[in-house]
């Protein structure tokens, strides 16, 4: 009987906490659909309300691996190479940190509504998370199965970040409005540049040493296969929507540092190459491959991002030339 009472006590403690959490979430509400929030943020920025008709508008789209491209420099390079153009080319960098094709698809309508001439979409392995071995699973990945099951069961009920909820509750109680430590820290250490509305640059860009790059580049052994197909389909849908609206699409594979490239399995590389081949054939689009171009150079912020220190211009130059070439093809 006492045994039973202890079990009841534990259950009461857990259930009380759980229901208090749900009650707080319902009252103060912090669960947000990240995709909706992102689209709302993009709409709020009013970037797509601008009139792009005066120039030949080019959009560069992708994740932070595209975000490191300084479009001010790209526009300078392009304008220096084009003489006597009645309609200048204007390049905008619409990269978003952590972007994936499925997230990009959410606001594809906004991009299309601006009628750019060409969209240059930068992709990489992280967008698709090809598993190390796609031929067959050599083991059952229980961690992945359970976390998928749990997160889909709890999603929409339990706030993913209870700490944020607590903060909202406390601030509300004390009627206080203050940015989080992290938000302050990000604001103080980042800056924006023109024609890059959604990406913030760190004020302290550095170059990582080779030793550190070797240490921090871990094996990219993704095992989640659902993301792979979801994002491949999203990318295809994105291309289809854009090309149906008479907008040209060019795909480019973003640069990667050599230790990252070495960490990829043959299967992952094969999958990426196959994806590119399929896209080229199916949608008659041009692709550019920058994966290995700068892999051995000493220009890396980390294993997947080129530093944006002013003197590092190789990536910017090559992307500028790609844009020029495609805009006159």
């Amino acid at each position, binding site marked *: 009987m*006492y045994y039973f009472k202890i079990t009841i006590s*534990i259950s009461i403690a*857990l259930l009380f906490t759980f229901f208090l959490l749900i009650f707080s979430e319902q009252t103060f509400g912090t669960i947000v659909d990240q995709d909706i929030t992102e689209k709302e943020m993009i709409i709020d920025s009013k970037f797509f309300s601008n009139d792009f008709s005066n120039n030949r508008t080019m959009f560069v789209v992708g994740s932070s691996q595209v975000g490191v491209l300084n479009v001010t420099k790209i526009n300078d390079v392009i304008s220096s190479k084009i003489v006597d153009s009645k309609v200048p080319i204007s390049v905008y960098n619409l990269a978003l940190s952590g972007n994936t094709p499925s997230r990009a698809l959410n606001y594809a309508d906004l991009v299309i509504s601006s009628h750019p001439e060409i969209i240059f979409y930068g992709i990489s392995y992280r967008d698709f998370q090809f598993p190390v071995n796609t031929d067959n699973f050599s*083991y059952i990945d229980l961690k992945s199965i359970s976390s998928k099951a749990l997160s889909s069961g709890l999603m929409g009920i339990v706030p993913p970040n209870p700490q944020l909820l607590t903060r909202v509750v406390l601030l509300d109680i004390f009627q206080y409005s203050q940015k989080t430590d992290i938000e302050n820290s990000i604001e103080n250490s980042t800056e924006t540049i023109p024609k890059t509305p959604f990406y913030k640059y760190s004020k302290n860009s550095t170059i990582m040493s080779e030793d550190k790059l070797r240490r921090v580049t871990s094996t990219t052994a993704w095992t989640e296969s659902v993301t792979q197909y979801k994002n491949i389909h999203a990318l295809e849908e994105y291309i289809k929507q854009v090309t149906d609206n008479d907008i040209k699409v060019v795909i480019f594979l973003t640069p990667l540092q050599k230790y990252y490239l070495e960490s990829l399995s043959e299967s992952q590389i094969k999958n990426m190459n196959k994806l590119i081949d399929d896209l080229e054939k199916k949608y008659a689009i041009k692709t550019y491959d920058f994966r290995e171009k700068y892999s051995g150079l000493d220009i890396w912020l980390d294993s997947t991002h080129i530093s944006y220190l002013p003197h590092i211009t190789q990536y910017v130059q090559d992307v500028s030339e790609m844009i020029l070439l495609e805009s006159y093809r």
Partner: protein
Amino acid sequence: MIFNSIEFIIFFVAVLTVIAIIKHRKFQHLFIVFASYFFFYFSSNYLLSLLIFSTLLDYYIAKLIWKTQDKQRKKILLITSLAGNLGLLGFFKYADFAIMQFNILGNQINIGGNIPFLELVLPIGISFYTFQTISYTVDVYRGKLEPSKSLREFALFVAFFPQLVAGPIIRASEFLPQLREKIENSTSKINLKQIIIHNSNLKLGITIMSFGFLKKMFFADNIAPLVNAIFTNPIGASSFEIWLGTIAFGIQIYGDFSGYSDIAIGAALILGFKIPRNFNKPYFAISPSDFWSRWHISLSSWLRDYLYIPLGGNKKGSGRTYFNLLTVMFLGGLWHGASWNFVIWGLLHGGYLAIHRVIANKFPKIANSVFFRTKSGKIISILVTQYFVFLAWIPFRVRDVDHMIYSMNKFILFDFQFQEMGNFIGSHKFPIIIMILFIVVHFISYRKENIIEKIATLNLKVWTIILTIICIMIVFFYNGNPEDFIYFKF
């Protein structure tokens, strides 16, 4: 699976339910073995084979050691066991480290061409279960322990899931008797005890586990962002920031590791097994040797019994004693990870132990002074000891050599730069409040002995309220990203 995850809660509840319902003892023990293997497989997949290899190797070798009378053969068998276990550990943990050193040396002397890295995944728990099985084989060799008569019993000892992944490193001499039922007039037959979940163990076990979760998820995980903010790139940080970051890391690693140990001890206790405590208020240690009798006790005692004493301990003169201390702590540091920063940490502690011994030997009047037994004397001893303990945490946390040197420099030579202090505190209010709260709670627990045991004896209503408060603190300050336990990486 990590302890601070819903998967573990579901797993643990399922194990307890099955054990409580099915009382057949043979089934219970087999069930726990397979549950432990499942627990291991969940995180490590096919690397479960290494655990099984280590289990089978030492089970059969220990039997052979016990049977044979020939001392030479016993030695060969022991060496085989050591080679097997240390070989596994050395290969998976240190192969790439060794290759890196060869490559660096090769580049220095212009040999040219680098040996490629093997890029092996570090099997979770390998540092712990190999040490556990080594201690078993050595104890059998020394005649201190009879080998296990049943593979089921031995497999349960090695794979017991509460302590499998990050300790405490339990000794077979402590664990196996808990498994066995006393049988009158029979020395050859071993019956394994039925596992019964007693009320008192359940209540105390849950109390210990909940405090473990509190230490890890409320204190350690919420202080981690401050530590990361300071030590990701400490160059340019003031001494105040370095001190704050170091103290924060000291609290983080204590909360993380002792929290894990508490969860392991609590879970084992619920199943009826007593695992010795792994931490005993180490930040109130009054000397380096006192620190090592309070921090990661299962490892320090293992190193003492299986390394320090076989090397001669303190029985072969002072010079040899200091050498033994440095060697043991060097290896203890290396055990934590294949990286020179852990070696530096180990050597620092070895140095502290050696210097402390020198002072005790050369200046006995100081060492035995009555002053150090007074309250003020104790406080000074604690502060001085902890200064050096926290200094050593810097190389433990900061791998980059330049960052490490900079941080240690700023720790030792205080720069009195307080201009940015207000801003810094303002932008890290939350973790600093958590740190202060930890210090207060930790001090209270130091003053009030056995506070957790006392809470477990409270009446059910009060106990439920305390448990609820702990759950609320953990859940409402959880940021959605379960942080790995630091010692999982070892």
